[in-house]
């Protein structure tokens, strides 16, 4: 299985090294790492809720779709849930392909789909209280290009 949904933090460097090893002969490896940002200022922490079972299934489906579409030789998704401090790693996707354009497109496709199609919900907790992060129209629009 190449999809991990976990509460624990992880080391992105270790993940990249491990993935690159499995991608021998691929030429191109792309990684995307998402980090909690304190956009408005005053973020105490972020909470990520998810839908156990459906999350793994949705990510698995998106992964297979990316592999097929872009002739990837490998793809991996790691996504955390639970409580995250500012500047913590939230998630990572990794893709490998013989050609760099495919590795890039595969990673962008995975990101666009998991943003709007994988059952995660973020909540930001500040001194003023907690607020669910609203989905962005631009994230929904990003799907239209695929």
């Amino acid at each position, binding site marked *: 299985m190449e999809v991990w949904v976990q509460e624990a933090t992880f080391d992105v460097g270790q993940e990249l090294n491990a993935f690159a090893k499995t991608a021998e002969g691929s030429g191109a490896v792309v990684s995307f790492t998402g980090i909690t940002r304190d956009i408005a200022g005053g973020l105490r922490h972020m909470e990520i*809720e998810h839908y156990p079972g459906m999350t793994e299934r949705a990510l698995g489906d998106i992964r297979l779709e990316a592999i097929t579409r872009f002739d990837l030789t490998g793809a991996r998704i790691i996504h955390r849930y639970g409580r995250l401090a500012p500047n913590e790693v939230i998630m990572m996707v990794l893709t490998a392909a013989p050609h760099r354009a495919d590795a890039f497109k595969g990673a962008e496709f995975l990101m666009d789909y998991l943003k709007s199609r994988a059952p995660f*919900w973020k909540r930001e907790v500040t001194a003023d209280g907690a607020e*669910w992060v609203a989905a962005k129209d631009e994230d929904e629009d990003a799907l239209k290009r695929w």
Partner: protein
Amino acid sequence: MDVLYFAWVRERIGLPRERVETEAQTVRALVEELRAREDRYEMAFSDLSALRVAVDQRLTDFDASIAGAREVAFFPPMTGG
């Protein structure tokens, strides 16, 4: 069937999942049944365009069949990544 709620839908309804016995054949019919129950359901389901639904862990729409479904989940648009 099991009905699950996530994020602010869960908060408005006040529970993460419940067992529902229903004759409803579509998601929309199930929603109407739930709305008729109590204010908290009415509040959660007041604007369906702000909601997403999954039947047996697959995203679908409100006109989808729920005949034979094991679980139906309601939640706001997803914000992963």
